[in-house]
């Protein structure tokens, strides 16, 4: 097979690049080895964990992907990101140029850049204080810890009451307690939400906030809003243990939008090796299709979890192209024995030049760009920039090819 661009990796970065490139009229394919990090999404995207993220981006070291994009270029891509998701039918909450706050499953607040439609984003920390909160769970669902949530909120000056709903629609699921998972519940809730809304109405006393687990809106994205309309108090949805219902739906929406633009999504396929000539990639070989040729290649394979970056006892490497990896010399420098300290190994990833062209033997490959969490130097867990790096590097690279 032959395409204009082959994108390796079908997560947030790969899909964003695919959408942007299809819109530009390129004929692209996405090779996706299994599902991706969207399935673990909190429902919120992080840009940078700082009061003024665009200002803070100016201070980042040169290896950080934002420094490669150039802090002055970030605003145009943050605006473009919101527009791109909007075209795919996903109305993100939040301001592209600012940070807000979102409620965590522990009842705390965490900075967020933009959120998926059902997740609230607050302009300031005060918005969460002093509420009367009714937290509602579903009987038998263990992946949503109501007591943690209540404890956290009480520290913010809220008062909380916890109720558990028992719905006949859920009884069949309860036959199999190990499968009382977010997604299985959400399948039932695409129709049973009406009963949840009705039950809540009878439970509300003087509460002004209702908090529900994020198990609504799997196939039908309108369900969370319809619950909001039906309930006489503000309804907030809070993330659960994986899989993430809004993340999974977002992946399906992005994939569908990509295919509607003519993109070819190769689910469950995997790039195994590459053929190169000098500084050009000629083709990649996938497990299912064999040789796939393209003029341009985009590496969006993710980090360790997605096997975009692999390691053994003494090496950290990029398995498809053997690209250069940014890392520290000597194994002892890779980690801090204090588990909760920022861990150096988490920042290791592919080395690129200023245009995200992948370096191999310290020289850039002409037609191979890297985007998203396969990139070295992002420190996304520490800096809270994982989704921002995925989306903004994808948009930046899509513009150059």
């Amino acid at each position, binding site marked *: 097979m032959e395409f204009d661009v082959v994108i390796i990796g079908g997560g947030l970065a790969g899909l964003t690049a695919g959408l942007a490139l299809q819109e530009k009229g390129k004929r692209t394919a996405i090779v996706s080895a*299994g*599902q991706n990090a969207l*399935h673990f999404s909190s429902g919120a995207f992080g840009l940078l964990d700082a009061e003024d993220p665009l200002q803070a981006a100016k201070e980042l070291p040169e290896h950080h992907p934002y420094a490669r994009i150039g802090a002055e270029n970030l605003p145009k891509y943050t605006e473009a990101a919101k527009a791109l998701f909007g075209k795919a039918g996903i109305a993100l909450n939040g301001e592209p140029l600012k940070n807000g706050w979102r409620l965590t499953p522990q009842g705390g607040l965490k900075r967020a850049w933009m959120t998926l439609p059902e997740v609230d984003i607050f302009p300031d920390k005060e918005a969460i204080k002093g509420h009367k909160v009714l937290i509602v769970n579903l009987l038998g669902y263990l992946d949503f810890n109501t007591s943690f949530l209540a404890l956290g909120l009480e520290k913010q000056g809220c008062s909380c009451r916890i109720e558990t709903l028992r719905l006949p629609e859920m009884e069949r699921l309860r036959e*199999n307690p190990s499968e009382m998972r977010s997604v299985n519940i959400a399948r039932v809730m695409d129709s049973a939400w009406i009963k949840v809304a009705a039950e809540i109405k009878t439970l509300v006393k003087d509460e002004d906030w209702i908090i529900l687990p994020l198990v609504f809106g799997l196939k039908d994205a309108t369900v969370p809003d319809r619950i909001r309309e039906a309930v006489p108090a503000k309804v907030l949805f809070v993330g659960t243990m994986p899989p993430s219902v809004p993340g999974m739906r977002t992946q399906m929406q992005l994939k569908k939008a990509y295919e509607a633009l003519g993109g070819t999504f190769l*689910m469950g396929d*995997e790039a195994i090796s590459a053929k190169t000539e000098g500084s050009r990639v000629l083709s990649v070989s996938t*497990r299912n299709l064999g040789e796939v040729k393209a003029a341009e290649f985009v590496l969006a394979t993710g980090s360790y*979890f997605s096997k975009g970056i692999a390691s053994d006892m003494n090496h950290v490497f990029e398995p498809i192209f053997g690209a250069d990896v940014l890392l520290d010399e000597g194994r002892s420098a890779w980690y801090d024995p204090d588990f909760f300290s920022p861990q150096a190994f988490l920042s290791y990833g592919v080395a690129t030049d200023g245009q995200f062209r992948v370096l191999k033997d310290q020289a850039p490959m002409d037609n191979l760009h890297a985007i998203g969490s396969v990139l070295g130097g992002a420190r996304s867990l520490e800096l809270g920039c994982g989704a921002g790096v995925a989306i903004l590097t994808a948009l930046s690279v899509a513009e150059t090819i």
Partner: protein
Amino acid sequence: MTLQEYTSSAHNFEECMKCTVCTAYCPVVPANPKYPGPKQAGPDGERLRLKDPFFFEETLKYCLNCKRCEVACPSGVKVADIIQAARIRYSKSKPKLRDRILASTDFMGTLARPFAPVVNGMTGLGATKAVLDATMAIDKHRTFPKYSFKGFESWFRKNAPDQTRFPEQVSYFHGCYVNYNFPQLGKDFVKVMNAAGIGVNLLDKEKCCGVAMISNGMIDGAKKHAAHNVAVLGKAVDAGRKILTTSSTCTFTMRDEYPELLGIDNSKVRDEITLATRYLYERISSGEVKLKFKKDYHAKIAYHTPCHMEKLGWGVYSVELLKMIPGVEFTLLDSNCCGIAGTYGFKKENYEVSQAIGKPLFDQIARVAPDFVACDCETCKWQIEMSTGLQVKNPISILAEALDI
């Protein structure tokens, strides 16, 4: 020996991260609460079963072996292989007479075909269906595939145009369905190949690929078939011929289930077995083959990707070929299991689950309202035809009717 060799298993269950993504994409879990789900039935259960076979549960039989868990797994765990291998290794339940009949597709075909008009008449009768339902637990809603009076092989030997006139030759693994039930697909295959300038050979007595035996626990039989097929496929490979197929499930079984589940070494033939759609697409895109289509062909087509086609990753070839036909209005249906899973849906105890699994697909087909559905799998065809009332055609048959010859 490295650390990994001490700590890894045949189907890599230890690479499972417990993320539950497989369960989120399993078509059985939402339809049948008795099924423990792929994570529990697969890698979680395997850890326990390795300690003590006591932990094997017969509910693993509810797995369709559709492999959607493997397609979704971010860690590359062979979830469905773990489940099927556990059934083979630990299950104490013996296949019933019904299961043996459903699974012995070529044996039953040989028996039934000489009496095709009688058998077809009988299996179509409400009374027969009621008896089969009551005595054999074959669900009465099902329509048995019709048997063809004259098999594809005998048609080919007597009536196929001279194949030796083509310089390029391929071998065709037609499978039971083409031989006993629907020779027209085989005839269409010959027509399309010949139009592409390629001659067709049959194999030296192929047997059923064995997929139905695997799913009905008849492993010894499946192994015999696999060993036989690998030998006859090997002869074609020795003669320098590719082996082409028109069924995604036969293809997947011979390429991947032989080594993974049956332990039959197919390394010599595996990469030579390919779907005709893939072969054609590659020859067309390299410019070696040109097909001429009718100018007045019109069809609104919705393509369904069978589960084993999702696993093979080759749906893209069928899709691209169909899009090449001028006058085709094309829709790619969402990735959903149709629910039949070979013989699974024929069993009375599975009928309701089978239809519940397929419902999202049937609903979408009704919304799209195509002239007919396209699909590379014969059992999906039966299920979709029964459940939607629309005709289902193999992409090769669609090419055959659209060709200008």
